[in-house]
């Protein structure tokens, strides 16, 4: 018993550890050693550690050598030459710009649209359950199917639905993917992520204080004031979460570009992720691609730091 008492508190949260001193638990089994919890955790920790550190170390190394998959042989040390090459690539500037535009537009569309949709389906109306289920659906569509659905059936300049609608109103159908490639990719990606944002805002609105809303209404607040002073502050945290999660995922938008525009025409819809892919698997230049990858990691970490802080606050 005394053994249990001396060992167990280490593994309990503070408040429970205090309880143990007041009323020792009648655990009969031998007190767990430190070994068991660690052994149980080891596989997950070790595999994740390797998953993180091995690629990172290799990327760091590759980024400093000349390494082309088509030219096996010596990997000569280049210093920072790969970085220089990646950054001075004429596609680099546009790809960074495209990444930022894609990220910013999709986030803006999904946050504003998501809040609007969530508010619309928050109050009861006939068929609300079905509407919510329908609204969520695009998020579960695999990115390649989503992209091709838009590329062919929606945006095809002759047979696509949009072309038909344009034609119906007497307008000249637009060749979306050729003339507005980045905009098209933004539409495709936003369509996928709007339900995600919407779902999170719907969930969050459910915990909104109804009494407070009612009281505000009785005090003569109009719907706009209620939204501005009560709903929006309540949504502050979910908005931050949506922005950061989308930042992390959308930084690497790949399948949607790969299947629709292939980054083109020219570099008009090439983002950083696609540029790295092109360097690695189309130009076979591992060194330059690795330098680009490190750049992408740095970009992602800026978003990650904020998200981790926010989630960390929620842990306690």
């Amino acid at each position, binding site marked *: 018993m005394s053994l249990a008492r001396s060992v167990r508190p280490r593994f309990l949260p503070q408040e429970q550890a205090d309880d143990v001193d007041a009323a020792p638990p009648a655990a009969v089994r031998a007190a767990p050693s430190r070994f*068991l919890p660690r052994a149980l955790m080891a596989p997950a920790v070790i595999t994740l550690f390797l998953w993180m550190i091995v690629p990172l170390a290799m*990327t760091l190394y590759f980024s400093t050598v000349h390494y082309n998959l088509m030219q096996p042989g010596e990997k000569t040390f280049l210093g920072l030459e790969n970085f220089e090459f990646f950054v001075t690539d004429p596609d680099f500037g546009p790809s960074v710009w495209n990444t930022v535009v894609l990220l910013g537009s999709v986030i803006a569309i999904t946050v504003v649209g998501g809040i609007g*949709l969530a508010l619309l389906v928050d109050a009861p109306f006939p068929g609300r359950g079905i509407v919510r289920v329908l609204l969520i659906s695009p998020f579960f569509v*695999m990115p390649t199917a989503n992209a091709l659905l838009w590329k062919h059936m929606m945006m095809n300049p002759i047979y696509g639905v949009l072309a038909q609608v344009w034609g119906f109103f007497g307008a000249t159908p637009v060749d979306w993917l050729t003339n507005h490639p980045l905009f098209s990719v933004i539409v495709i990606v936003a369509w996928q992520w709007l339900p995600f944002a919407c779902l999170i805002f719907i969930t969050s609105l459910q915990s909104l204080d109804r009494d407070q809303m009612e009281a505000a209404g009785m005090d003569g607040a109009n719907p706009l004031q209620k939204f501005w002073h009560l709903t929006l502050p309540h949504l502050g945290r979910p908005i931050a979460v949506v922005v950061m999660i989308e930042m992390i995922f959308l930084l690497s938008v790949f399948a949607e570009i790969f299947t629709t525009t292939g980054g083109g025409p020219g570099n008009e819809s090439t983002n950083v992720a696609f540029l790295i892919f092109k360097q690695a698997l189309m130009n076979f230049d591992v060194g330059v691609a690795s330098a680009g990858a490190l750049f992408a*990691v740095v970009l992602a*970490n800026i978003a*990650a730091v904020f998200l*981790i802080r926010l989630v*960390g606050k929620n842990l306690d």
Partner: protein
Amino acid sequence: MKALALAVRTFFAWGITLLVVFPLIWLALTAFKTELQAIAVPPQLFFTPTLESFIEVNSRSDYLHHAWNSILTSVASTIVGLAIAAPAAYSMAFFRTKRTRDILMWMLSTKMMPAVGALVPVYVMAQTAGLLDTRFALIVVFTLSNLPIMVWMLYSGFKEIPPDILEAARMDGASVWGEFWNVIRPLALGTLASTALLCLVLSWNEAFWSLNLSSAKAGTLATLIASYSSPEGLFWAKLSAASLLAIAPIVVVGWFSQKQLVQGLTFGAVK
């Protein structure tokens, strides 16, 4: 007045929702058309449905092959992931130490690494090991990229189990395994199920790694669908049928796991 407001809201909610999901509805309709009907001008809303495209898609053996790859990789990565994540989450939830929080945060941070940052090394490693275009490579990568989310979801689920129950089980002399299997598993069945579902959805839809690491042999449905991207030949009905078969099961799974999905994807930051 109230009735009018309700009518207006109902109209807009349904109208906008149907507009948002229109592409999916269109996909489902096109899947039951012939190739000629699929590209008809003006588009046909009413037509005699045919299963032609489904039959054709299924008779191409590569469809079944890719579907099998999808099932195998997503199920295997889910099972392996659970086997690794559950003990870790159990350990963190019931033997909490000062470091538990740091470990959780660190696991979360590994998920923040953009996939493209690891593309080159993972590709080179797979190539060196002769694992390019194998299901094994996909299972490993899917498992690893889902692992942090799984640990997090299981951890927050296990935390809800009152420690008293475990204490009682220990008094009765349950072993660690007995405690896990007889006490925690039944109580956390919901958590385990929703974690598995989320993992299935993520692996099934995964496109970055499957496009880069696999092709004809180990390619999943995501890669098969991507092969329809060529502009030559307008096989919209077949593309729609193949897409519908590929997304329908997972969309249905998604409907049932919405709430868990929010928690899992936001790491519990939104409740």
